[in-house]
C-alpha cells in the first residue's frame, strides 16, 4: 500500500535563515505548518505569526472552579450538611473559607494549565510523521526545519517547493504520513 503524502520538510542551516523563511511562509498565508528547531529561537513565534496561547483561558476556568469549590465545600460541610459552632464563629464566613479556597484556586489553576497545555498541543502524541524521517535527528542537534502539511487549504506541491527554495532551504524532502 502506498504511503500517503504528509507534507514537505525543508532544512535551514542557521537560526536567522529559518526566522526569515518562517516570515515568508507566514506571509504566503499557510496555516498548517510548523518549525522544528534544536533550541528555542527568540521571536520565532512572531515570525510564524502565532497568536498568544489559549492556555490562560484554561487557567482562568480552573482558578474560578477552585475558588468556588473551596467556598462551597466549607459552606456545605460547616453550615449545611452538619452545622457546628467552632470557636464561637458563625457557621459560614468567607473569612475562614478563604485559605482553603485560595489553595484550591492555585491547585486547580495548576491542573487546568497543565491539562490545557496538553490538550492544545495534542499531547501525548506517540507518533508524528516527521519522526519517520531520519532528518529529525539533525533537527534535535544542529539543523532547522520548516514542515508544511499537505492538508493546508493553500497547499500546492510545486508552489510550496518553490516558496521554500526561494526562502533559502538547503534541502527539501517529502514526508509520508
Amino acid at each position: 500500500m502506498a504511503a500517503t503524502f504528509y507534507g514537505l520538510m525543508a532544512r535551514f542551516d542557521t537560526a536567522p535563515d529559518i526566522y526569515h523563511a518562517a516570515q515568508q511562509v507566514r506571509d504566503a498565508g499557510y496555516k498548517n505548518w510548523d518549525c522544528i528547531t534544536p533550541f528555542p529561537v527568540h521571536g520565532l513565534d512572531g515570525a510564524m505569526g502565532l497568536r498568544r496561547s489559549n492556555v490562560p483561558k484554561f487557567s482562568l476556568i480552573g482558578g474560578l472552579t477552585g475558588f468556588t469549590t473551596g467556598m462551597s465545600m466549607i459552606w456545605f460541610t460547616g453550615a449545611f450538611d452538619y452545622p457546628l459552632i467552632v470557636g464561637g464563629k458563625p457557621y459560614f464566613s468567607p473569612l475562614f473559607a478563604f485559605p482553603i479556597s485560595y489553595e484550591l484556586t492555585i491547585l486547580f489553576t495548576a491542573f487546568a494549565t497543565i491539562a490545557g497545555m496538553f490538550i492544545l498541543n495534542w499531547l501525548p502524541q506517540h507518533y508524528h510523521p516527521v519522526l519517520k524521517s531520519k532528518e529529525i535527528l539533525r533537527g534535535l542537534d544542529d539543523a532547522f526545519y520548516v514542515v508544511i502539511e499537505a492538508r493546508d487549504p493553500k497547499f500546492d506541491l510545486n508552489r510550496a517547493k518553490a516558496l521554500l527554495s526561494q526562502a533559502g532551504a538547503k534541502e527539501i524532502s517529502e514526508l509520508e504520513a
Partner: protein
Amino acid sequence: MSTHVATISNVAGTPAAGSTHSVGSAANKALVLGLVGLAATGLGVVISGKAAAFSYLTGLVFWVAVSLGALFLIMIHHVFDAGWSTVLRRQYENWITCLPWLGLLFAPLLISAVVAPGVIWKWTDPAYDLSQVGGHGTVAQDVLWVKKSGLLSTMTLIIASFVGFGGWTLISSRLRAHSVAQDTDGNISHTHANRFWTAVGLPFTALSMTLCVILWVKALDYHWYSTMFGVWFFAGAIRSALSLGVILMVWLWSRGDYKGIMNNNHMHSIGMLMFAFTVFWAYITFSQYFLIYMANIPEETFWYSLREINKDGVFNTWGYVGMFLLFGHFVAPFLTLIHYPVKLSKTWLPRVGAFIATVVLVDMTYNVMPSLKNSSGDAYPFLSLNLLWIATSVVGVGGVCVWAYLNSFAKTKLIPIRDPRIVESLTYHE
C-alpha cells in the same frame, strides 16, 4: 572582564551621553512645592494640633516606604546579580538620595516626643492620662506598657530612628557612589563592593525598618500585637517603589531618554513584579487579619474593632476604608495586572502604578489615623480636615523627595553604562 567592560561602554555610551538632563528648573519647582506643602502642614499643626502631627506622620511614613522600597529593589538587584533591571537601577539610585532628607524631616516628630511627650506616641509620657482616649489611669499604671517598657521608651525611639536613617543613608550613598564611579572607570570592583554593601544592607535594613515602623506606626496603639506588621510595611514599600519605577520608566520613555533602552520585556517584567507583590500584600494583610480573627484575643481584636465599629456598635467610616483596601489594594490590581496586555501598555501600567501608590497611602492612613482617638475611645472619622493635612504632608515631603531625585538625575548618567550586566539589560528579552 575588562575587555568586555570596554566594549559595552562603546555600545551603551551613545544613548546615555546623548540624553538631555534639563531638569534643573523642575527640581527647583519641586522644592518650592515641597516647602509650600510643609508650610501648609505647619499651619495645620496650628489649626488642628495633634491631628495634623498624625497626618504628617502618615505622609512621611508613606515616602519612607517608597524610598526604602527603592533601596530594597536595588539591593535585591545586586543580591541576585540581576540582569534586566540594570537600566532601571540608576533611577532608583537617584531616588534614594532623599533618605537623609527624610531623616531630617522626621526630626520634628522626635523633637516633639521630647518637648511635648505623649502628643504622638502616648508611651513617650508615662504620666499620660489614658482617660483622654477612652482608657483609665496613666500609661505608667498600664500593665501592657510596663511589660513592653523596655522597648517603648523615648530613648529607644530616638536611637532606633537615628540608627535607621543613619544606616539607610550610609548604605544608599555607598550603593549609589560605587555605581556612579563605575560609569567613569568601568572597574569591576565597584560591582563587588555593591554586593558587599547589599549583603550587609539587606539584613540591616530589614531589621531596622521593622523596628522603626513598629515604634513609629504600630506602637501608636501600644496594646496591639501583630507578628505580620514589619512584613506588611515591606509589602507596601515594594509595591509603591515598583509603581514609582514604572512611572519613571514611562516618563523617561515619553521624554525620549529611554528610546532604544527600554523595551516591552522590561515593562512586562516590572508588571509581573507588581502583580506578584499585589498577591504578597494580600497574603500578608489577610494573614494578619485572619490570625487575629481566629485567635479572638481582646489585646489584638480591638485594633480591627476600632477600624470598623464605634463603642456604641455603629459601623464607622474606617470600616468602608477597610473594604476599599480589600477591593482597591488587592482585587482591582489583581484582576487588572493579570492581563498580559496591561503589563505591556505604556498608558495603563503607569496608571495602575499611580493607583497602587495612592492606595498604599490610604493603607498607611488606615494604620496611623484611627489611633487618634476621642475621649470615648472611638476613632475620628476618615472624612475630616485631617485628609487635607495628609495631602499637604504628602506634597511637602514628596516635593523634597522629587527635588533630591531630580538633582541626582541631572548629575548622573541615564543608565550605568559600564555595569557588567548592561548589555544583557539593553538587549533584554524573555
